């Protein structure tokens, strides 16, 4: 194995070997794959490698620079964490699809050309769908179906953009594309759908909460973050992203506030965090792009940690709704502690990872004097604390006592959560380690007295608002409902479309039946049956009259002729008569 072996292929080829292995060897093999991949990524030579020619174009499987490397590292790390978390899972299909999915994400990350990018992109779509299907419920099947349809639309946009791109530029290599021209817009929309940019965001909160407990760890880390990587690579400085991103930081927090399902709350939180990253890409400076990349890195860890802690609760209790949970700290204290670490990290408390990454983006917005955007981001920072920082741990592990007394999470889940929790604290305490890996050289100091105090004030007084509203009974209780989002348009819209087409086509069918089957065809049929008999009878009448047959005899002969023709029995003599008449007419005319 050379050092330029494509890391994606280790996951994909390794996944295909899983069905051949058994027992502990299989479990260890699954854990070993991300470690080997991580080792290979570390040893990848910088620049382009893994290249080969296809039809006059050069495919580049390894485009290695600091940007792709950082995403490569975190994708390998989270695959290890996710595989450990899923160590107890017996179904091969979950492990295989998770690893192929992670392989797709690595393929997208290191692809230096649009062809291999597209192939890995679609591998991700297909493999990730199986992680939703694997829940094997009616809801998950329906959600997976909607998920794959949305992503097929996104994939087709990307493909159309890629084809136009290659046609326009004559090369399949890509780097900065810039938001100009139809090809760029199509590629942009294709990526934006995976990044859950509104109004194309609803697939995320629709499908992810229906995935398996372990599958969602991979889902939360790979699809949206690989889209962020591509955005940072291809559209840095696209001003539109500043405003789209700012909107994304704000609107999900309202939905998250009123959502009952904890995993769906976290999905809204994902959109909120992606919003921060897109703002950083939109500004497009070294500081803001570094902030985006750093935040993607830290977000993968703390979001995985939060999904893992909520997943451990589902694993033990089968429940994920606020209305059904509460008081679980009593028997799941370690999971509770890990969840609080994840909550503190996403809320960007000092000494936790979110603080050192998100503040780079907010500072970049401040340096650019984007007043409204800055105010929205600060508002969103307080909002994140509310739904992800307080709501997730409080209503699951504290709050009202649900009476549930589940066992602590299994050892493999605890170790996986422990690794992610360690990462969150380590990065928060020693940000220099992460900063040294960032793509652009930036001298940023997160721990200044003013920044620490300002952030703590924002967060602690947000908690004060929660505390006072809760103690006064003004805080809205969680209720057993669902909330509409833009997926309504295709979930209900599809039914309206079905009903309209059903009504339209069925009525069209009825009218067509009346005109063609009941009308024209029936008349042709009557003519075919009775027309010839009538013609013969009319033609034969003069012959019968001349021959001296009386009226009764003539009528009986006519009846015989008519009956014979109704059974399609055509005696030669009878057929001859109309033929002769026809020939006579032709001769006369």
């Amino acid at each position, binding site marked *: 194995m050379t050092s330029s072996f494509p890391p994606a292929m280790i996951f994909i080829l390794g996944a295909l070997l899983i069905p051949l292995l058994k027992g502990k060897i299989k479990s260890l093999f699954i854990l070993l794959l991300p470690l080997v991949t991580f080792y290979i990524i570390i040893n990848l030579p910088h620049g382009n490698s893994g290249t080969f020619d296809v039809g006059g174009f050069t495919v580049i499987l390894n485009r290695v620079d600091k940007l792709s490397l950082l995403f490569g590292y975190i994708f390998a790390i989270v695959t290890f964490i996710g595989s450990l978390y899923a160590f107890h899972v017996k179904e091969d299909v979950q492990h295989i699809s998770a690893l192929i999915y992670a392989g797709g994400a690595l393929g997208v990350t290191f692809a230096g050309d649009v062809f291999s990018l597209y192939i890995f992109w679609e591998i991700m779509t297909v493999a990730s769908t199986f992680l939703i299907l694997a829940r094997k419920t009616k809801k998950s099947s329906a959600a997976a179906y909607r998920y794959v349809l949305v992503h097929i639309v996104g994939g087709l946009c990307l493909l159309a953009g890629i084809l136009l791109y290659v046609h326009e530029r004559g090369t399949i290599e890509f780097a900065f594309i810039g938001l100009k021209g139809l090809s760029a817009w199509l590629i942009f929309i294709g990526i934006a759908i995976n990044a859950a940019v509104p109004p194309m965001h609803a697939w995320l909160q629709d499908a992810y909460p229906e995935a398996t407990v372990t599958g969602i760890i991979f889902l939360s880390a790979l699809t949206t973050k690989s889209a962020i990587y591509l955005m940072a690579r291809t559209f840095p400085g696209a001003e539109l992203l500043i405003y789209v991103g700012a909107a994304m930081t704000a609107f999900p927090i309202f939905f998250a506030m009123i959502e009952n399902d904890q995993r769906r709350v976290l999905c809204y939180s994902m959109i909120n965090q992606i919003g921060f990253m897109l703002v950083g890409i939109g500004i497009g400076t070294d500081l803001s792009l570094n902030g985006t990349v750093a935040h993607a890195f830290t977000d993968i860890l703390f979001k995985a940690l939060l999904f893992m802690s909520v997943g451990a609760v589902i694993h033990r209790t089968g429940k994920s709704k606020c209305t059904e949970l509460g008081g679980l700290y009593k028997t799941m204290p370690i999971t509770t502690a890990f969840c609080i670490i994840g909550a503190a990290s996403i809320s960007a408390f000092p000494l936790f990872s979110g603080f050192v990454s998100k503040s780079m983006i907010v500072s970049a917005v*401040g340096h650019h004097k984007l007043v409204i955007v800055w105010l929205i981001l600060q508002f969103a920072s307080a*909002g994140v604390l509310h739904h992800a920082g307080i709501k997730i741990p409080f209503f699951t592990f504290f709050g009202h006592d649900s009476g549930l007394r589940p066992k602590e999470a299994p050892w493999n889940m605890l170790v996986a959560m422990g690794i992610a929790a360690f990462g969150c604290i380590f990065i928060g305490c020693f940000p220099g380690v992460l900063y040294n890996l960032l793509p652009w050289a930036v001298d940023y100091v997160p721990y200044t007295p003013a920044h620490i105090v*300002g952030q703590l004030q*924002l967060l602690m*007084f947000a908690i004060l608002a929660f505390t006072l509203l809760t103690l006064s009974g003004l805080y809205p209780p969680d209720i057993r409902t*669902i*909330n509409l989002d833009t997926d309504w348009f295709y979930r209900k819209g599809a039914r309206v479309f079905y009903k309209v087409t059903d009504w339209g086509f069925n009525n069209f069918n009825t009218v067509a039946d009346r005109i063609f089957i009941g009308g024209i065809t029936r008349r042709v049929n009557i003519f075919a049956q009775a027309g010839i008999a009538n013609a013969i009878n009319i033609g034969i009448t003069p012959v019968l009259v001349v021959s001296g047959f009386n009226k009764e005899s003539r009528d009986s002969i006519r009846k015989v002729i008519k009956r014979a023709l109704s059974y399609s029995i055509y005696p030669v003599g009878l057929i001859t008569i109309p033929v002769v008449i026809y020939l006579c007419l032709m001769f006369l005319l």
Partner: protein
Amino acid sequence: MKELKIFDNPRNVKILLIVFFSCLAILLVTDIFIDKHGDFPWEDKFAFFCAYGFISCVVLVFVAVGLRWLVKREEDYYDE
């Protein structure tokens, strides 16, 4: 199974609240001594972030209540 019951005791909840409010007081006092150079002039005002964090969350809660009224549906809404 051994159970933790630390928050079943109202005294412990009270201690937690006292610690929390003390932290708030310390943060307010610290604000006076901090040398601020924010990107915007209002960042340097006394307790700006305290007020912004508090008001943000109150606004968030009440707007969310309004939003719930608008988008709330039965759990089997899509199953019909």
